[in-house]
């Protein structure tokens, strides 16, 4: 193919978007709409996953040292914990702190403890795991450490959270896949209809002696351009609204004084989103054109 033909084809594709602007507008806006849906899903799922990751770090294990263990021994246990690769965070609870806690628990009946001091209580460590999925294992390991008396942990809760996050993972992957397929489907359907509306022109070109590729290329350029515009528009719209929502929501959360839930910033996730949008818009635009044209080229 000669350079002048490539130029011509490129020009044609771009011009056609304008010439058939009614259809182009319909396609672009359909692509935009389906990518926005996809984007909404994607953003929700990204945030859910983000918060799930945090949730996974929440439940704590408590490692109790032998009450008779001396400071040296405690230090050794602490070091062992810190070195453990499954553990994200280690916080020490001294004998005194433990005593205060019990006092608090007894509330008005704290006078029961009168005359006692903290020495009968053990030093303990509150531990956050990196991934609660292997909590069972970790417990076994920790119990083997010299000077460790017992390990308490909310087994049930951990199992549930673990299961739960797995499920959310699976669901989010499945949903993303479904949404992807449906978006591709809607976009290619739209392209199919726009090609259909021009089936006669395609056959005329064929009757005059144009090769299939000579006819196809401008449509492909057009498809990519339409897909590109649709992707860009939906990216901008999604980003704009996500930012506003994220701001508002974060503010509310700060007011409520909680950090259980936090939202991702748009710029933490916009790259993969942009890539996906562009991929969906342009690829489906291009291949949708190629496939839709096929049947009308057989003349």
């Amino acid at each position, binding site marked *: 193919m000669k350079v*002048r033909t490539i130029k011509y084809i490129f020009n044609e594709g771009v011009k056609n978007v304008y010439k058939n602007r009614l259809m182009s507008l319909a396609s672009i806006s359909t692509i935009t709409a389906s990518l926005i849906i996809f984007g909404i899903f994607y953003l929700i799922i990204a945030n859910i996953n983000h918060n799930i990751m945090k949730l996974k770090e929440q439940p704590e294990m408590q490692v109790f040292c032998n009450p008779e263990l001396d400071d040296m021994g405690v230090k050794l246990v602490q070091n062992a914990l810190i070195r453990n690769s499954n553990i994200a965070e280690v916080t020490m609870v001294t004998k005194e702190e433990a005593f205060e806690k019990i006092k608090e628990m007894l509330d008005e009946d704290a006078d029961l403890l009168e005359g006692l001091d903290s020495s009968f209580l053990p030093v303990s460590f509150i531990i956050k795991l990196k991934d609660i999925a292997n909590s069972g294992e970790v417990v076994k390991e920790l119990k083997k450490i010299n000077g460790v008396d017992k390990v308490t942990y909310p087994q049930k809760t951990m199992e549930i959270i673990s299961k739960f996050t797995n499920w959310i993972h699976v669901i989010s992957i499945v949903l993303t896949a479904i949404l992807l397929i449906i978006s591709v489907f809607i976009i290619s359907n739209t392209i199919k209809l726009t090609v259909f509306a021009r089936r006669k022109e395609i056959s005329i070109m064929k009757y005059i002696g144009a090769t299939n590729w000579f006819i196809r290329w401008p449509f492909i350029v057009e498809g990519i351009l339409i897909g590109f515009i649709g992707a860009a528009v939906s990216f901008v719209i999604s980003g704009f609204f996500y930012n506003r929502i994220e701001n508002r929501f974060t503010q509310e959360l700060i007011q409520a004084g909680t950090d259980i839930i936090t939202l991702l910033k748009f710029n933490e996730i916009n790259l993969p989103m942009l890539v996906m949008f562009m991929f969906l818009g342009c690829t489906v635009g291009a291949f949708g054109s190629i496939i839709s044209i096929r049947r009308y080229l057989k003349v």
Partner: protein
Amino acid sequence: MIEFIKVKKVYPNDVVALNNINVKINKGEFVFLVGQSGSGKSTFLKLILKEEDPTEGTIFVNGYEVSAMKRRDIPYLRRSIGVVFQDFRLLPDKTVYENVAFAMRITEALPKEIRRQVPMALGLVGLSRKANVFPNQLSGGEQQRVAVARAIVNNPSILIADEPTGNLDPETSWEIMKLLVDINNRGTTVVVATHEKSIVDSLKKRVICLDRGTIIRDQQKGTYENEGTHNKIYI
């Protein structure tokens, strides 16, 4: 060179459009194809272009065996033939100029060539002033002339015209016919399906007459209707 050997064309709804057609049109000939409405003229031309495939028989065009050629080669066959379709088949989104230029663009002609040939072709059919309008802004006869311009712009080795003057006044019709004769004189094989009795009669070219799908007359220097003699000449 166009040759039909025992060609039969039956459309899917069992209409026999052509039956047992044997005919040979040599390079450089000028042939009128005449016959009543529905007698199979357009079908004959469509077979040459491989717009339709014959049900039976063999067709040779420009050395290609049309009935057995690869899909890939069809565009090259069609490019070697200039066609004026009965229903014009102009591209509605392109201007008159671009419609004519399109026939050259597909052959990857030089821009220089295009800029020379297209205005010339439009001049020949008397449409220089309409170069930049769209087909739906043209009168019926003007559209038909654009179709003629597009057919001749590539200097094809065969020129096929299906009723090229149906929407034209006698004067313009004559000019278009003379144009086709000119082109024929420069070596192009020309096949014209027409109903213009007066033109056929005065040009005295070869006339092939179809009647309900069969050739009932094939006459050198013929006339539109069979002359008084009733000597039908079959090939």
